[in-house]
């Protein structure tokens, strides 16, 4: 199976671990990711906050490139996914002429988690698990923008998505239920307003611990960065010693399928997940 792949800027930087794990596990699922050639930044929060033209025109160029390739598009970053979907909706149809942007619209755009948790892939995964993640108790944390707003994302279960949990179960781990799976981590406010991330992050750590979690499973690199990179600071400021690794679902797929490089991805985290995984006998 072959799909177009739009990685987004942060997968070339702070989410290098996510990028490496995606590239490694896709072939294990017989999936070919064809990176869209010469893709550009989607504009992120900055564009939709400051300039409605850029908010559409930047993703529109990517849509035009993807339309030329003619395949479904898979996007690992929640924000990129959201912006591409929003532009596809806004520009497909009669409006495109007015905007002067050559987009047909109606392209099938997937967020990576949704794509990987289709029945066909879950079945393949179930057959390929060689190191079940026995004893790993984690909460699924989806964040905002793969789900909301449903008018843009097209999601049905936007208040209570369950595919991270389903996936973790297939991989042999123990997903825990909690009420904060789609709450906001603060996203792009991390640099300009770290004080806000302190409050939002601590709330999520506390709730995850209350649920009995040893860590988070995420599908958004912004959520990963905020929960992983801020944890030491939040621990220091709050006087609590949080130790909650923030794992990408693709890293867990790699672990459960015995990918030899899985430990390299984990070594890039700031909250080191390896002591926990060693304790559980998973690495």
């Amino acid at each position, binding site marked *: 199976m072959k799909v177009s792949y739009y990685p987004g*800027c*942060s997968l*070339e*930087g*702070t*989410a*290098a*671990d996510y990028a490496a794990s995606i590239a490694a596990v896709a072939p294990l699922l017989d999936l070919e990711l064809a990176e869209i050639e*010469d*893709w*550009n*930044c989607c*504009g*992120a*929060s*900055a*564009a*939709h*906050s*400051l*300039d*409605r*033209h*850029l908010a559409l*025109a*930047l993703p529109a*160029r990517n849509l035009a490139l993807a339309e030329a390739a003619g395949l479904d598009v898979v996007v690992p970053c929640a924000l990129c996914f959201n912006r591409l979907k929003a532009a596809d909706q806004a520009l497909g149809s009669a409006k495109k002429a007015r905007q002067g942007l050559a987009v047909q619209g109606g392209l099938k755009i997937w967020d990576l988690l949704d794509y990987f948790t289709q029945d066909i892939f879950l079945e393949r995964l179930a057959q390929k698990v060689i190191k079940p993640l026995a004893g790993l108790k984690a909460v699924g944390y989806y964040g*905002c*923008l793969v789900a*909301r*707003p*449903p008018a843009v994302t097209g999601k049905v279960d*936007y208040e209570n998505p369950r595919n991270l949990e389903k996936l973790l179960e297939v991989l042999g781990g123990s997903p825990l239920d909690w009420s904060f799976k789609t*709450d*906001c981590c*603060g*996203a*792009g*406010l991390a*640099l*300009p*307003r*770290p*004080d*806000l991330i302190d*409050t*939002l992050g601590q709330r999520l750590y506390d709730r995850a611990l209350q649920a009995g979690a040893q860590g988070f499973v995420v599908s958004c690199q912004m959520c990963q960065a905020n929960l992983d*990179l801020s944890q030491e*600071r939040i621990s220091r400021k709050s006087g609590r010693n949080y130790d909650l690794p923030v794992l990408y679902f693709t890293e867990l797929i790699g672990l459960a399928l015995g990918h030899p490089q899985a430990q390299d991805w984990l*070594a*890039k*985290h*700031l909250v080191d997940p390896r002591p926990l995984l060693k304790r559980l006998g998973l690495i």
Partner: protein
Amino acid sequence: MKNLGAETVRPESGPPSAELLERLGRETELAVAACYQCKKCSSGCPLTFAMDLLPDQVIRLALLGQEEQLLSCRTIWVCSSCQTCTTRCPNRVDIAGVMDWLKEEALKQGKEGSAPEVAAFHRFFLEAVRAHGGRVSEAHLVRRFTLFKLWRRPDLGELLGNFKLGLKLMKRGRLRLAGPRALKGRAEIDKIFEPYRTQT
């Protein structure tokens, strides 16, 4: 009137006017008049603790034409665009979209003063995309924002923390000092940025 942790609506409201409502109707699809003040937006908002106006108050004030108050409030800049309000509104008011519209308008009128660091961050982000020919350079963004903080409101503890964090990320291959290479379609990117350039 105190609720959900936000401060009282500031008293300096002007007389009600339909001007803002008419403008939103003309320029956007943001239908604020559909709001019946159920406050579901504010109840679900994760950032009310940092806001001076609650999301439902923003919509009400838009309806009443209180543009000055809205463009100078803190709320629009601490909104993280998580889309919970827009998702849950029973009347399909795109509250997060209204926040975006107000941010853009505040910037045009030079009124981002209530949260200068957020507006600056967004500006530097777009600058970092343009300067590197189509993809954002995280290092460029961090450098630019650090200079801004040093100049505007230096916080040595925070700076030192960010510096240490940057080193850790670099060691782990998660922060590259060299920016991304310019795209082949760099000229297209420049063209996309043209209207933005002339406006700011």
